[in-house]
């Protein structure tokens, strides 16, 4: 009776799916409450997922163009490599912050130097670690500046200039920037209820405001997965954002794809899941032959098919098919070969039934099914994979000596900037190098790659060399790519494409290119 009464009231009230109360504001589902802190000051960015909110408030200096694998100036008009440690940037003239003040090279200097300082002090874990290599920024005019790095940086600078590291804040910004942000983006903050809702309105100060079709954005807290699916189907949100852009897992994406009222889009992201092993002495994975055997004993196309329903999402090397750095011969040379795997295990003295303890962290919803398929595949070559759930704080991002439980490997997801895919896992004394693996050859490759610009014709060969070495030594075992899974209300939202969504958790989302259908 009580339920009937409130339902009648709800129906009379127009309900949640009514169009009557909507305006030209895009409602985005986003798990605002899954993070301890959501930083609105890019200088303090602590998680990669913050890009979904930050990219509405700030604009990058450059943008990545997926179709040509190139970078094009955005807030900047020109970016020039002086040498591999020096980059000159020219800003658009007349840029304004959302409070109406001028955006100048002095603001850029203060922002970059503050970010570098915060990264060194461990205050900004969401930023590209490369920013720590910044030595200083020299202002050459109100609209131009030169970035000087301590070591070669052209290998990663373009990722930084198209990512959150290039979100400029006023040079006089105080701690208030984190709650009352002043940015250069297409939108400005209207209200922020932590863990619940963020409302933004169009910023007339944005340099391309004339082409922004939305009046505003509202981020509504929705957990990823099934809750996001329900929120979309109930028209509580228009589009989802999150770790797989749409905040959808493979299962909920599949359900949404079958509903003609919704638009769905999937494409391989630059991210991939991998088997991250502890290769220190005393651990089973210290054995080179065992690592090599696992490379051949893993059927990656079958794994991708089982999890995502597409062999295209296989990950045998660290670049996805279609990338200019992808090398088909590596996929061919390290294809599934269980007989060779067994031979390598015998050569390495690995006994039948060798146990490997794998921990899962709750980062990747696909981790559990991935591990189950892996367990099945490796049982065929005589490896017994024990899977247990670990904790990201006490098991993963801590030195091996402090692991709460001793384990041989974890399933990890690389969702950082592509240029960081070697350095983030193998640089000594860094948190992602789980057992502080020291391979001088890989360290030399990191140095080499950081000195090669993505525009350099030598870049593909250098990356292919690194990919091949990782496969030969089994130092890092990619398992599957991760798709971008976007879902939106087709009758309401226009403009969703691979270009507007960009590279998952790396590029700015181009919200200004989305619109509401009337």
């Amino acid at each position, binding site marked *: 009776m009580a339920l009937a009464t409130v339902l009648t009231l709800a129906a009379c009230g127009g309900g949640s799916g009514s169009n009557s109360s909507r305006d030209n504001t895009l409602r985005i589902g986003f798990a605002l409450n899954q993070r301890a802190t959501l930083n609105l000051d890019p200088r*303090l960015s602590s998680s990669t997922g913050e890009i979904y909110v930050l990219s509405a408030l700030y604009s990058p200096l450059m943008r990545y163009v997926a179709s040509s694998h190139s970078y094009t100036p955005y807030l900047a008009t020109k970016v020039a490599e002086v040498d591999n440690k020096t980059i000159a940037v020219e800003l658009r003239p007349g840029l304004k912050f959302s409070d109406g003040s001028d955006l100048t090279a002095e603001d850029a200097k203060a922002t970059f130097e503050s970010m570098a300082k915060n990264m060194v002090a461990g205050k900004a874990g969401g930023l590209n670690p490369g920013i720590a290599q910044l030595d200083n920024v020299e202002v050459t005019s109100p609209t131009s500046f030169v970035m000087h790095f301590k070591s070669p940086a052209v290998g990663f600078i373009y990722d930084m200039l198209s990512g959150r590291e290039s979100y400029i804040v006023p040079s006089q910004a105080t701690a208030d920037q984190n709650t009352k942000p002043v940015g250069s983006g297409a939108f400005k903050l209207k209200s922020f209820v932590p863990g619940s809702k963020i409302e933004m309105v169009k910023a007339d100060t944005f340099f391309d405001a004339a082409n922004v079709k939305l009046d505003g954005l509202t981020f509504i*807290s929705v957990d990823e997965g099934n809750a996001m699916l329900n929120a979309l189907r109930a028209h509580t949100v228009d589009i989802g954002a999150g770790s797989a852009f749409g905040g959808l897992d493979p299962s909920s994406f599949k359900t949404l794809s079958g509903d003609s009222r919704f638009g769905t889009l999937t494409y391989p992201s630059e991210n991939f899941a991998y088997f991250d092993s502890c290769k220190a002495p005393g651990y089973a994975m210290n054995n080179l032959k065992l690592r090599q055997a696992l490379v051949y004993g893993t059927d990656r196309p079958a794994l991708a098919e089982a999890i995502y329903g597409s062999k295209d999402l296989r990950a045998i090397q660290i670049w996805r098919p279609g990338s200019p750095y992808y090398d088909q011969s590596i996929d061919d040379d390290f294809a599934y070969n269980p007989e060779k795997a067994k031979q390598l295990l015998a050569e390495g003295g690995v006994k039948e039934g060798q146990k490997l303890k794998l921990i899962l962290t709750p980062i990747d919803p696909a981790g559990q099914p991935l591990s189950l398929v892996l367990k099945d595949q490796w049982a065929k070559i005589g490896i017994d994979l024990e899977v247990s759930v670990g904790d990201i704080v006490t098991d993963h991002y801590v030195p091996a000596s402090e692991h709460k439980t001793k384990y041989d490997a974890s399933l990890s997801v690389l969702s950082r900037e592509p240029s960081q895919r070697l350095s983030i896992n193998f640089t000594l004394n*860094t948190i992602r190098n789980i057992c502080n693996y020291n391979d001088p050859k890989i360290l030399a490759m990191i140095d080499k790659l950081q000195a090669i610009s993505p525009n350099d014709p030598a870049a593909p060969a250098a990356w292919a060399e690194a990919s091949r070495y990782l496969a030969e030594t089994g130092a890092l075992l990619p398992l599957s790519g991760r798709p971008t899974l976007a879902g939106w209300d087709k009758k309401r939202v226009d403009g969703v494409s691979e270009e507007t969504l960009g590279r998952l958790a790396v590029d700015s989302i181009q919200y200004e290119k989305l619109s509401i259908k009337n």
Partner: protein
Amino acid sequence: MLNLIARRLAALIPTIFIVTAAVFALSLGIGMDKAAGVRAGDNPSVEAMIKAKEILGLDKPVTTRYVEWVERAVQLDFGRSFVSLEPVDAEGGGTTLRGISVREHIATVFPRTLSVTLIAALFALLIGIPVGIIGGVWPGTIVDRTSAIGAMIGLAVPSFWLAMLLVSWLAVGLGVLPAVGYETVADGGLWGWFKHLIIPGFALALGPSAMIARQMRAGLSDVMGSPYIRTAWAKGASLPRVIFRHALRNATSAPLTVFALAMTQLLGGVVIVESLFGIDGMGRLIVTSVRSNDVPMLQGVVMVFLLFTVTVNLLTDIAYGFLNPKVRPA
């Protein structure tokens, strides 16, 4: 009556003391060093760990920390989060990070949990009492048997499963209620606030409403056979007068006990329901605090749950006194 309240309040003192000691001891077990590690940043040096322990006050003896913590806790000051940080302007210029205030954060999220809990309690009473009265007044009838089956279903159905069904039906299917989220009264108005709580509230309320209905039915059917009720009938009292004037007052002791228990159980239920509906309340906070070893936040949340529970129990005891003069001290 005042004597009863004073006695109940006095009895709370040792309870609160024991629970605060237990909360503090439990928090020691989840790893203060790890909390310092989180604060000290990635790959902390020994010096950074020592500094972090100083900042967090972990370099002091346990007894000193406990006394200091109790001193602050009685003023509802639970310190600052070890993990959730906020930037503040540094003295020498620039920005530094400090933990957010636990009290302020709880003050932000607690109203959300309280809203869900109160709406669930309201639904539980609105469903449980009428169903119990019908069963108690007309035992053995088809209405009674139907409500008994309904109560059994209510007790058997898990709240999260019911929540998912209701979302599927009311939010996704009919589109009359929101599938996720929470709005404050200031933000969405009274209706905006209420409509976000209908599904989570109802999902949480079904179990407690079934318990209340069963207890109410049992209590009322006993009372309805009493001599004083027969006397009331003999005097020509109407049915509503017999029920509400004479029978109900003596039949509500058991349902009241169940309601008090249900209120505290509802707090446990919100952990799952808040996750399902994306409500950033106390339930989610306790999960994230445990997972991130945020000791002050965890202590604060547990203390607020404790205060809520003892307040409900105190009010229940006082209500007993009003309903039944026999429990009042002489």
